[in-house]
């Protein structure tokens, strides 16, 4: 069991065995989370700062809860409201925070690569909570854990990722992770929302959703990211729902025991039918939220172990 990362900036740098290590530990934390007494001491004495340059209630709450359950001192900073507005650069903000000696820095930023840039300038462990359209590693890890627990394995599955691939960091991280773990990945969406050159990532691309869902084990829906679109990717949400919204009829093309996933927040009636989302036999959407906390606890625990094992490198 090894985990050799200093930061968690993306799925790209992780080895398959590191992913397995993290998911195994997350399994333990799922059990912990279901107990009445949910406290552990893995992060006790450490300071965790959540820096969100982009609004996210769910991810921020999940990271906050994960840190608190492991005994860290957690501080939330909402960056849209603060110094960035006063003209401070990202680097300066990072240097200022760094001077407060945090141990774990959880960062979300609207621009791809911004978290990598920040990680170069601070000497704590940095977790990427989503950067632009680039990566969202903890989401991919929680999806992987959900799949592994529902399907009993995380390899040789047929998985369809559907919807707004182009604007989705969730899709990118999931493609990388599921590919590393040797699954067959299909992307389903209108061609305006599928990024160019994506076929080089070892995926099959479908623009017909029924074809794309045929005999898959897992259906991952993505949120239509209206806020990232500068207009004109789809003609209307109702036409989108008609062609790419997941309803019972389209889902019938998938395997009988196929699970339905969604990273949330959902646009009901746009990319997913409400009854499918609430169907406890098919939908694992609530499980995903639970796994989210466990995976983030595992990720921060592993990074903190590396921090404690190599204090010199961190102090440098």
């Amino acid at each position, binding site marked *: 069991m090894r985990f050799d990362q200093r930061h968690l900036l993306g799925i790209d740098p992780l080895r398959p065995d590191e992913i397995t290590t993290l998911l195994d530990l997350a399994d333990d934390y799922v059990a912990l989370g279901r107990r009445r007494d949910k406290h552990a001491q893995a992060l006790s004495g450490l300071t965790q700062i959540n820096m969100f340059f982009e609004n996210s209630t769910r991810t921020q709450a999940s990271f906050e809860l994960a840190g608190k359950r492991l005994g860290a001192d957690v501080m939330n900073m909402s960056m849209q409201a603060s110094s960035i507005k006063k003209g401070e*650069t*990202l*680097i300066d903000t990072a240097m200022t925070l760094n001077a407060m000696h945090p141990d774990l820095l959880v960062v979300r*930023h609207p*621009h*791809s*690569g*911004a978290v*990598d*840039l920040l990680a170069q300038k601070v000497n704590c462990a940095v977790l990427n909570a989503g*950067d*632009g*359209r*680039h*990566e969202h590693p903890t989401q991919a890890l929680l999806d992987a854990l959900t799949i592994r627990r529902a399907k009993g394995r995380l390899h040789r599955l047929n998985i369809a990722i559907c919807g707004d691939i182009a604007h989705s*960091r969730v899709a*990118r991280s999931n493609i990388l992770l599921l590919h590393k773990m040797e699954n067959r990945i299909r992307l389903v969406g209108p061609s305006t929302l599928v*990024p*160019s*050159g*994506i076929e*080089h*990532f070892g995926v099959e691309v479908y623009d017909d959703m029924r074809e794309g869902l045929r005999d898959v084990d897992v259906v991952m829906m993505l949120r239509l990211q209206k806020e990232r679109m*500068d207009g004109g990717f789809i003609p209307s949400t109702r036409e989108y729902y008609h062609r790419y919204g997941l309803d019972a009829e389209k889902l019938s093309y998938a395997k009988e025991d196929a699970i339905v996933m969604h990273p949330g927040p959902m646009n009901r009636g746009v990319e997913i039918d409400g009854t499918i989302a609430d169907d406890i036999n098919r939908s694992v959407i609530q499980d995903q939220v639970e796994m989210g906390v466990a995976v983030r606890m595992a990720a921060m625990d592993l990074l903190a172990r590396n921090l404690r094992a190599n204090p010199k490198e961190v102090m440098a």
Partner: protein
Amino acid sequence: MTDTLLSNARLIDPETGSDDLGAVLISGGVIKEIFTQGTDPKGEKLAKVNAGQVEVVDCKGKCLAPGIVDIGVKVGEPGERHKESYATAGRAAAAGGVTTIVTRPDTTTAIDTPEGLDFIRRRAAEDATVNVLHMAALTKGREGREMTEIGFLLDAGAVAFTDCDHVVRDTKVLSRAMTYARSLGALVIGHPQDPGLSRGAAATSGKFASLRGLPAVSAMAERMGLDRDIALVEMTGVRYHADQITTARALPALVRAKKNGFDVTAGTSMHHLTLNEMDVADYRTFFKVKPPLRAEEDRLEIVEAVRSGLIDIIGSFHTPQDEESKRLPFEEAASGAVGLETMLPVLLRLYHSGELDLPTLFRALSLNPAKRLGLPCGRLAAGAPADLVLFDADKPIILDRFKLRSKSKNTPFDNARLQGKVLGTWVAGTRVYAA
């Protein structure tokens, strides 16, 4: 002033395509005579010169070529003098073998009036040791609404008219400016890029941009921009130059335009000839240029187009940026790289890889840009101005960006291992740089 003899040099003449040992005699700021095996087989003429009153510089077999004419250099005056001044740009140019700088008008504020042009002409004359010529904006404020005073600006010394990367969207405005420019014989320089398709882009669409999650523009945007401009050239008959052609897909449009006999030329940048999109790697903003770096297949096609002469001119598109504007997330970071000082050693990569010979390289660096602007330089011939660069094409160097003479150090070639070093630069017979 005594005459100077540059002897024992490997003479690179792009006009004749020759690469021979010989000597150059400079007198009164111009090349007086060239001595080679062909013109002076027994060395008698040379011996006579050597016996007279002459300062002799032994070039030790190194390369001597006409100085580079670099069209499209950004100097920070007025407005951004902390990024680059005429003094620092001039020193960087001299150290890079660039003997003529042709500046861009995309300063703050834009060079769009004869008064503004007059100001920078004076600044350049005071501070720069190399020749400096200036381009002016095609439309007022580079806003694409009203043409500038093209006539007055020509009188004030503007050598070409361009709005740089602000593409004129309104084709009616552009066609009128082109028609007016044509009546005055002015050269219009376009930036072939469809403004709608390329809006917000920081990379070229494809596997790399998708992997990195960067907003991207299709390579087709360049073809569309070029096609549009060429249609307007056909309509107005203006003299037109495309500043940077960087994609394979745009080349057929250029071939057609030249075949049809339009007065069209094209350039490309040193960066697009030597780097590709993969060099951006982990969001390295020093590799962010405009247009964005392309795929390797595009790079290879563009190198071939320079070799064949389809692309006429290579420029550095020298764009100084300070650290603050580059130390930002990739999408927010400023575009552009400095290149005056690095262009020759960087482009010698193409010589060492066997893709371009030296006369071909200097055809695109010196001869063609001079011809396009109607300048007498760019040639190794009697009567031409003695604007010369002496360089060692083989000397290995490791580039250190902090040693660059530019005020801004934003080069993508920091720590790059290069082969080639400028040893000396002469402008009108005066040595302005010695390594």
